[in-house]
């Protein structure tokens, strides 16, 4: 057995197999297992609830239609779903020119603001969200998948259909852009801030 096959939880493979043979309960179970991750990914990529809802629905419609295309040798089912979601999100962004709108909405923060001291405050969270949304698409995807969705580099690479090294470099670049945008000018006690 290939190593990558071990990464697919047997319950998910089983659910997918049953779903493809027409088992509605298996489909429902898969949906409940994965919908929130797909929804959050779309929301974090676009910042729009309506788009996140549409994308989530379309991802699971696509799973019904094209679920047989899932190949465990190429990655996990989660990666497969993120890959579909990513394509749909990119299409939405292109269509609605959402990138420009979101980029316009974000202003770089002044460097003397100590963001992390108030990190639990909603507006601070929203500032971070806007900073992520303002990243160029390729860097945003890497940050959202690896830092917000906690995917491994391998799974992110499978979802983005690119080499692991590319994910790493995009992630580093994305984080560097966030440092600049959020204006972390001085070392901060992150533990306190995050708490």
């Amino acid at each position: 057995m290939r190593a990558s096959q071990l990464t697919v939880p047997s319950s998910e493979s089983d659910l997918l197999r049953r779903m493809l043979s027409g088992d509605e309960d298996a489909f429902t179970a898969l949906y409940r297992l994965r919908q929130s991750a797909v929804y959050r990914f779309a929301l974090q990529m676009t910042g729009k609830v309506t788009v996140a809802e549409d994308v989530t629905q379309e991802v699971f419609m696509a799973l019904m239609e094209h679920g047989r295309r899932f190949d465990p040798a190429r990655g996990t089912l989660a990666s497969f779903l993120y890959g579909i979601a990513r394509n749909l999100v990119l299409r939405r962004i292109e269509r609605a020119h959402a990138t420009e709108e979101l980029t316009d909405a974000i202003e770089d923060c002044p460097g003397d603001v100590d963001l992390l001291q108030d990190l639990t405050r909603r507006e601070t969270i929203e500032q971070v969200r806007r900073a992520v949304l303002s990243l160029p698409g390729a860097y945003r995807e890497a940050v959202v998948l690896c830092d917000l969705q906690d995917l491994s580099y391998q799974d992110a690479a499978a979802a983005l259909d690119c080499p692991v090294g590319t994910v790493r470099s995009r992630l580093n670049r994305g984080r560097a852009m966030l440092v600049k945008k959020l204006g972390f000018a001085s070392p901060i006690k992150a533990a306190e801030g995050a708490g």
Partner: protein
Amino acid sequence: MNLEDNVLKALQALSESDREHQAPPEMEARLRVAFRRNRAAKRRRQIFGWASAAAVVIVIFTTFAPRPRPASAVPVARPTESAAANSGLGPELGPAPATSPPINLPATPKARARNAVQREIVTDFFPLMDVPPPIGRGALVRVDLPAEAMRTVGLPVREDRLAERVQADVLLSEDGLATAIRFVKVSR
């Protein structure tokens, strides 16, 4: 603690705050309805495929199968005893005398059972198309399908019998489209 660590902490906080976000509850119901529709459409397509394939096989078979040669119109002279004598063959080696016509014996119970007329039990016709074309002329084709096909029209089939073969009549429209199907059970 470097700047990137601060960013990571900020992202972690954002991730945690988003953890509760999920798709609205009504989406699940919508998708379940879509799943059922999708499943029904797939099964209709499957039956349509089987029926079409069966129809093609039948058409090919009826077109290219060798046909029995018609009986010769030229009467064949029945050999007579004199002919046998003239041929120089003895009566043992000459052509066999014409056999007597068969005698109709009363049928035994076994024979009666063999010859019993097969009765067919058929279901109603189930449409295979949402909007079937009007049928002016068409054809009814008997095909052999897996029992699983019965499920596609909502007939109950036990899991362990899905692979068994069943007979069905497929109603083909003039242009060869399978428009309806009924299942047939042959009983003696």
